[in-house]
């Protein structure tokens, strides 16, 4: 598809890179020549320097043939205007990033009246993710498929866990909950396990199951399944506001520590039920005074990645690993290092936003033929979990899985048959109309038939 991305910031460039890998024709527009040059130097895409709200510039970027315009500049108004112009000139699909709560409360109106296909608020999206992570404190990472019906959860196998030393076959018999371990991270290595795989302590396992089954599984392992009771949020930006609203609604105790006096006043007006503390979040004595040792969770949302990392590490240390921590990381890209730290859950708002937009693009593309619906990268990008729509008959349809010659390192981990979640065995077959989740260490699968050797 022809895709125009306006704004080459963090999100814009991440989306451009992924869409390019997925073989779309991408054109980026930005006012800063240097940014455009750098990106076109790195990726096989076209760059246009100019203001994305100008019709001339959009024409130059090929708006007349564009299928999607994604506006992700720093400014909400510019994004909206850009989408509006794009819609008027070429009737393409438009995606706008809108950050200001004033607009995001009017999303439906804007969508309808301005004809914008998707409005996404990065902070809102990130806050939903954090909120989900807090509701399952023992889980480090959550990826959802099939509109939230199926989840891949990342768990750490502790030393005292019953799972240690079990093979997967034994695990399925011993522990209730119809779950499948679809990937394992062991000392920086990504493994797709088979039935005789033995789980060891310190492994990170990725389990795939329906929501209900994963709850059952977690509770039978004796892991926390209740959501946390209270939380301390460090840094009171937009994300903290959305998160606090959500958590307060769920009935949690929320404490926000914010360094800026005026922002504190604002937050206290917006969130009367939360306790707002004016102070520096990285002040050790303040944290202890505010009850870090007894808190059940901490969410580090300051603007500095380094601070957030330190906060989470400190909280883990001081509470003796009992606290659930969520760390926001904006900029730092050394994934391998980050995952080796004991940070608990990590949220990267730009990645969440990128996932959302990519899912929209893929869904749109599916109506044109190809069939990846959702894709997540697990284990630092070494494993991909893909959801395929089975729209038509192909070599893999209606044949029992055991008779298919499937490539090594590919696991058909879940079949969603009209809402019924099947964990497939050798006798199951893929039918037309199913959606299938495939977990693989191979990258770049674009069609379900590519799983065959």
């Amino acid at each position, binding site marked *: 598809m*022809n895709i125009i991305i306006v704004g080459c910031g963090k999100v814009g460039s991440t989306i451009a890179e992924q869409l*390019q890998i997925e073989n779309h*024709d*991408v*054109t980026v527009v930005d006012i800063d*020549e240097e940014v455009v040059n750098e990106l*076109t*130097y*790195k*990726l*096989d*895409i*076209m760059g246009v320097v100019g203001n994305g709200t100008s019709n001339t510039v959009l024409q130059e970027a*090929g708006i007349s043939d564009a299928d999607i315009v994604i506006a992700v500049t720093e400014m909400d108004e510019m994004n909206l205007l850009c989408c509006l112009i794009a819609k008027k000139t070429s009737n393409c699909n438009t995606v706008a990033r809108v950050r200001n709560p004033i607009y995001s409360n009017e999303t439906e109106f804007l969508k309808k009246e301005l004809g914008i296909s998707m409005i996404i608020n990065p902070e809102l999206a990130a806050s939903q993710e954090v909120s989900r992570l807090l509701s399952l404190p023992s889980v480090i990472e959550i990826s959802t498929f099939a509109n939230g019906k199926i989840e891949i959860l990342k768990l750490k196998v502790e030393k005292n866990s019953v799972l240690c030393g079990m093979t997967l076959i034994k695990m399925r018999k011993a522990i209730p909950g119809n779950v499948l371990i679809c990937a394992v991270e062991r000392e920086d290595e990504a493994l797709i396990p088979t039935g005789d795989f033995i789980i060891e302590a310190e492994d990170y396992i990725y389990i795939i199951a329906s929501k209900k089954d994963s709850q059952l599984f977690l509770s039978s392992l004796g892991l926390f399944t209740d959501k946390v009771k209270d939380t301390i949020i460090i840094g009171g930006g937009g994300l903290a506001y959305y998160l606090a609203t959500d958590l307060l609604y769920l009935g949690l105790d929320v404490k926000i520590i914010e360094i800026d006096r005026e922002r504190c006043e604002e937050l206290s007006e917006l969130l009367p039920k939360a306790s707002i503390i004016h102070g520096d979040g990285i002040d050790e004595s303040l944290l202890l005074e505010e009850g870090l040792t007894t808190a059940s969770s901490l969410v580090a949302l300051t603007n500095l990645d380094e601070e957030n990392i330190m906060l989470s590490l400190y909280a883990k240390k001081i509470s003796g690993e009992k606290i659930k921590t969520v760390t926001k990381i904006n900029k730092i890209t050394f994934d391998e290092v980050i995952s080796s730290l004991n940070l608990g859950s990590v949220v990267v708002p730009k990645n969440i936003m990128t996932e959302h937009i990519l899912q929209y693009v893929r869904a749109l593309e599916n109506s044109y033929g190809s069939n990846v619906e959702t894709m997540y990268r697990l284990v630092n990008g070494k494993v991909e979990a893909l959801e395929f729509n089975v729209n038509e008959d192909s070599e893999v349809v209606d044949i029992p899985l055991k008779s298919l010659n499937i490539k090594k390192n590919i696991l058909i981990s879940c079949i969603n048959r009209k809402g019924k979640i099947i964990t497939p065995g050798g006798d199951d077959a893929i039918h037309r109309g199913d959606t299938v989740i495939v977990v693989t260490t191979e990258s770049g699968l674009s069609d379900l038939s590519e799983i065959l050797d």
Partner: protein
Amino acid sequence: MNYSMIFYLIGWTLNAMAGFMTLPLFVSLYYGESSYLYFIPVIAVSLVLGISLVHKKPKNTVFYAREGFTSVALIWIVLSIVGSLPFIISGEIPHFVDAVFETASGFTTTGSSILVNVEKMSRGMQFWRSFTHWIGGMGVLVLLLAIVPLVGGHNFQLMKAESPGPAVSKFVPKIKKSAAILYAIYIAMTVIQIILLVIFKMPVFDAVVTAFGSAGTGGFGIKVDSMASYSWQIQLITGIFMMLFGVNFTVYYLILTKKFRQAFGSEELRVYILIIALSTLAITFDAGEYFNGFGETLNHAFFQVSSIITTTGFATFDFNVWPTFSKSIIVLLMFIGASAGSTGGGLKVSRIIILTKSVYRELQRTLRPRSVKKVRFDKKPITDDTVRSVGVYLAAYFLVFSLSVLVLSLDNFDFTTSFTATAATINNIGPGLEVVGPAGGFSEFSDLSKIMMIFNMLAGRLEFYPIFSLFYLPFKR
């Protein structure tokens, strides 16, 4: 430095060479010549080497500017050497340096020849010699980009390193598609020229090689007098097509996508046409005494102007005998060169425009120190960085130029010969003045001078930096 990736690309180049050489092979078979025998071993060796280099794709496909520039330079050197082998084996150009000179002159679309009598050459070899122009005109790597499965965005480095002009742009987001469109336009225009030439009664073989020569803006003829003995219609068609191939190909893409205003609004195109028109008129009035009547003078003047500004180097007349004013115009046109993004060489019209404008800006700055002014091109302000790089390009150009004049003067020809031989090779034109004029040749130079000129041609075609990188990178980490 990712050497495995560089070798992989060289492997593909060898395969492409083997593919290219099958064409002259069939030509010589068609004419019942024995010259096909000399293509077979070269094709076989290229294929064996090429396939062994590409059969396994390198694991590490990371490709940065330095790999891009180095591989482009190496590939062009490989082309010149492998391409010269049929000439050497067949004995038609027995001397190694001569054969490489002729082939480099072909691929870089220069058209300078060391042959004394080209008409004695076999058809197969004549065809191969002209075909190298056509291949080199649009570039081998551009072709490879269109057909070879390479992943990653860094491929743009290759296109950048091979394409002429200060700023390289893609037509469409995908480089593969861009390269394919470029070649499609190129092929279509070549075919149209061949058809027109045949309609006006040019023999088919002559029409094909002439079209190759003008498409690549090369200029190898198959007659001793170049284009002089053909009818005026054939000369006019060739003149017009040379001019067309000297236009930035983006213009054609814009026309194809019906963006006429953008296409014809191009500042470079307008200045290019203006220079051609003015030079043609000036020569018409200055050199009228050599021809019968205004019409004939205009035709010859236009042909020579078009041939030199596009750096083709065909001739319908020995302009060496023209008055000094006309000759001076010809020499100046050599330096201006064709448009960026065309198949022509030289400094490029866009660089001349930017240079002239920056001189004007500098003057303004000197006289009114507080004034702020941006250099504009195509109605858009261009960055100081671009202006700077154009200035530095000129410096690099004259460094090589001076060195070459010095080396060539060792052969003790007159100054005009050394000077114009350098200009003719560095700008990829072909003929110069005096000894190397349209009626002369490069055969009398020493091997050292020939090697210097091979360097000039490659450096000029690739716009210096790729060739320079070969001298820079091995010594720096």
